[in-house]
């Protein structure tokens, strides 16, 4: 009798122990991009999912912040309250999300940011080098124009840090290396293709001589291309985008868009997911400062675009 009792107790203990063990090894990772409806954020998601595919004990949930910082802060709170183990976040704004990131980290939830760093230290920031890539685009534009001409910029909304950094890099390179290139216009096209068409049309009407356009993302570059094509001036205008989404790479192959600053977004998402897993499994320790992991940009033009493999296009 005593023996069976002991056995039962042992079994019960074992069950609880294994229960605790599984509880410790099952993780919830939250993915919170600025919006879900863009090629870039979808590619990140695929990258994250692929990195977590063979890990049965990890679940991933993504939410849509609809491009509003207020909504993103609410969703961060929700991830925290639900006890997520790690959060992969693309902050809509560095300042606005700082408090949320701080709150998460103070509850022991590591936050890995994508592309936009926040003001206070957190686990890591896996970022495209926005300023550097903007600089790179400007060098390419400057070279192809022979150091002279008129350039317009399709901007991101005011305060959108990633876009602003790209534009700053672009302007810095022109000011430094190609002072004879004039920036004849810069307007906010709200990251959108249709808005890109509208703004590009106004640029085309005002500037009879326009030699190049830099759109701080590919959607707007595609919009600019449509506008230039319908005005019959596509041949005279070099159009550069940023991000390197699949559709834009195809347009570069067709010669309609000149180039884009390509980043392997699958890889970037995967790197963030892997970093989160390393922290959770203890393979990596969190440092005092944010670890900045830079994903190098690649200037994709008609000559170089073939180097990007089909499986790396997103």
């Amino acid at each position, binding site marked *: 009798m005593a023996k069976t009792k002991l056995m039962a107790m042992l079994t019960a203990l074992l069950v609880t122990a294994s229960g605790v063990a599984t509880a410790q090894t099952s993780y919830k990772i939250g993915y919170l991009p600025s919006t879900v409806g863009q090629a870039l954020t979808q590619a990140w998601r695929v990258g994250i999912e692929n990195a977590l595919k063979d890990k049965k004990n990890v679940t991933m949930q993504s939410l849509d912040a609809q491009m509003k*910082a207020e909504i993103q802060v609410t969703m961060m709170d929700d991830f925290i309250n639900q006890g997520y183990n790690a959060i992969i976040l693309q902050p809509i704004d560095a300042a606005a999300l700082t408090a949320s990131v701080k709150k998460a980290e103070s509850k022991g939830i590591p936050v890995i940011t994508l592309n936009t760093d926040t003001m206070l230290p957190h686990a890591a920031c896996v970022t495209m080098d926005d300023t550097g890539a903007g600089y790179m685009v400007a060098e390419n534009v400057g070279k192809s124009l022979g150091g002279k001409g008129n350039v317009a910029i399709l901007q991101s909304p005011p305060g959108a840090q990633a876009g602003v950094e790209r534009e700053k890099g672009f302007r810095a390179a022109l000011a430094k290396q190609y002072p004879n290139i004039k920036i004849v216009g810069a307007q906010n096209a709200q990251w959108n293709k249709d808005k890109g068409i509208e703004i590009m049309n106004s640029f085309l009407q005002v500037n009879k001589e326009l030699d190049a356009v830099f759109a701080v993302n590919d959607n707007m570059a595609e919009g600019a291309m449509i506008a230039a094509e319908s005005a019959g001036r596509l041949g005279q205008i070099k159009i550069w985008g940023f991000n390197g989404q699949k559709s834009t790479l195809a347009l570069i192959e067709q010669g309609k868009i000149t180039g884009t600053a390509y980043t392997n977004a699958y890889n970037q998402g995967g790197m963030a997911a892997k970093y989160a897993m390393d922290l959770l499994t203890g393979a990596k320790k969190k440092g005092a400062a944010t670890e900045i992991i830079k994903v190098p940009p690649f200037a994709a033009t008609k000559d170089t675009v073939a180097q990007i493999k089909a499986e790396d296009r997103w």
Partner: protein
Amino acid sequence: MSVSAIRRLILVGLLISIGAALSIASPSFLTLDNLMTLLQEASLTGIVAIGFTLVLITAGIDMSIGAVIAITSMVCVNFISYTHLPAYVFIPIALAGGCLIGWVNGFFITYFKLPEFIVTLATRGILAGLALIAAVKDDQGFVKNVFIQDEVFLSFGETVGPVYIVTIVFFVLAFATQLFLKRTRAGTNVYATGANPTASRLSGINTDRTLIGVYMFSGFCAALASIFLSARMMTAMPDFGIGSEMDVIASVVIGGTPFTGGVGDIWGTVIGTLFLALIKNGILKLGLSPYIQPIVIGGIIVVTVIADVWYKGFAEKRATRIARQKQALAKEGV
């Protein structure tokens, strides 16, 4: 029991049953942290919704509330960045700014007899533009979102015990406004102006003054919410609040204040705000695809409002039927 009391009871019942369902579906729903965040969320919308309810009772509409939030946050951040004035000096100034915008709305509506929607839509556009102009810029002229470190200002985003200050302010403001509406003469004037402006004017109510006052209050509420929002986010952005009008309108309408004016009260709005915040909070817990979430939220709002309108119609019909029967009975008796 009156029709409005019954439909309020139904809404409260729905609120509780959805809450119960969510606590079963997700273990993290019924935690103190989550409930407090939910209330904080509700309060930020709710403070604006209180002012908006008064506007709706006068059969008006205020589309400028979102832009008032934006411009107020810009006013505060400018004070923080460029002056050394303490928060208890510039916050009243910012709140007064909200009132001033409301006064301008009210003035154009009453003096020039312009439609409320057009006037407030115009101010919305103007203020949204002004917010961008007023935004703090970096040395190259790009909008910079300042990371606020003013302790007094940030204390507005803190909690008392587990409860966020904004939640306390929301309930106090709701209580005070409800008292004002039901117990003061000015409150009665608000209802009268909405129900029948001509009759009110003829019976000696200064409807213009009532309207201007209501829009000033709406501006004040939006400005107040803006300060809590900026303190919570530790920053101010020129697009703060723009687009949040729809949440406010949905909360008020779910709460039972119709667009037609003359009826409605603050308790309804409080319930409506809690209802919307509950749905939004709950939906995040269910692990639905982000594409589906807005559809579900929109769907629930539509269903609630349809059920509401249907019940109101049903109740009115029943009331007339009973009245007719009584009449018929009375005739037979004679």
